[in-house]
């Protein structure tokens, strides 16, 4: 009986390493534990398949892998648990702007929200490790830009930024372009219409 259920050693090792790890791991990090000679990617694919029907799933967030409980079982698990950090509306909007526009400066965030960001808002996002400084923009004043982190992807269950809800539609509709750019676009359009 065990014969047909046998799982190869690599798959078991990768499974154990990810299970024991206290943080999501890249393929390279997994390889440092299970050895260079084995096909870690193939093992990961096999594990994703093995766990697809189970109460635990193996997921990839950014370029890191981890086990987590299946989302449909949330109702069994929420009991007695504290809500994770509750973000203010300003926090949520700022996070969304960073995620959909990254890298983005503080001034750009403020232009979209039409209001100054209070100091605490960015701090909270960075303290939660969802946003990080992402270098300076090479324009006068060299303002700092912000971007999201791998922790952001894993917290919100995103494989990559391409999985951000509705990002393709927003991009197609030009809603991720600055107002000036969108305005010029409309000018050209109406010129073409009137011609």
């Amino acid at each position, binding site marked *: 009986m065990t014969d047909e259920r046998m799982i190869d050693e690599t798959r078991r090792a990768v499974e154990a*390493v990810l299970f024991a790890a206290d943080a999501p791991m890249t393929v390279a990090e997994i390889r440092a534990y299970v050895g260079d000679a084995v096909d870690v990617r193939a093992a990961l694919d096999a594990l994703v398949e093995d766990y697809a029907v189970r109460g635990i799933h193996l997921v990839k967030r950014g370029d890191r892998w981890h086990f987590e409980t299946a*989302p449909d079982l949330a109702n069994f698990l929420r009991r007695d648990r504290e809500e994770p950090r509750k973000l203010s509306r300003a926090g949520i909007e700022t996070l969304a702007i960073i995620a959909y526009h990254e890298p983005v400066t503080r001034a750009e965030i403020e232009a979209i929200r039409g209001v100054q960001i209070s100091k605490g808002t960015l701090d909270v996002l960075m303290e939660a490790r969802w946003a990080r400084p992402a270098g300076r923009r090479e324009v006068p004043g060299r303002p700092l830009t912000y971007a999201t982190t791998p922790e952001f992807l894993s917290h*919100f269950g995103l494989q990559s930024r391409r999985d951000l809800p*509705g990002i393709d539609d927003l991009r197609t509709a030009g809603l991720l372009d600055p107002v000036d750019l969108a305005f010029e676009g409309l000018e050209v359009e109406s010129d073409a219409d009137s011609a």
Partner: protein
Amino acid sequence: MTTETLTIDIDGWDGPLDLLLALARTQKVDLRQLSILELVEQYLAFIEGARAVKLEVAADYLVMAAWLAYLKSGLLLPRDPTVEPSPEELALRLQLRLERLNAMREAGARLIARDRIGRDVFRRALPEGLRVVRRSLWQAEIFDLIAAYGRISARTRPVLHVVANRPVMTLETALERVSAMLGSAIEWTAIERFLPGEAAGAYRKSALASSFVAALELARQGKLEMQQQSAFAPLYLKAAP
């Protein structure tokens, strides 16, 4: 407009743009079909109402109100083609800004509603953890080892050998050499010419020093003359006439 809206505290909004967006939503149309004129009137009515109930209205709300009042007059009056930008352009820009803010607000709501770790899905609470065992790979070279032993030995041994091993020309040797060579030196000759040709490094320095002392001694005895233009200039010797 509905009077209830007017009683809402101005602090409930994240700035005038936020308030405008909230008002725009009451028109219950796609933001692209928004009537900016109607929106402007809603806003001005709201601010008036807020002031009527003696709320402190923040400066940026009043600035926005003034700007919108200007925009309203521009939209209502016959167009003056010399005014740039045109009221229509300003209205369009306002609409674009509202669309963008609205898009980000909806995106934020969808983001925050996802299956989130710690709320909807859970990671392992008590992982065993992976261990990295650090091992020092000590390194030393054979040269370090024998040099260290040499250092210890030098530190703890009598230092007799130190001088014995140094290449020197004694004063006696220098005296003999300079005296012997002086016979042929009837012209002024640089002192370096009196040194052995093969002398180099430490030995050459020693030979130079000893030869100089020897030259002084011979000069005292009246056997040679010495000449130097200035301090550190070349030193010349010649046999005393």
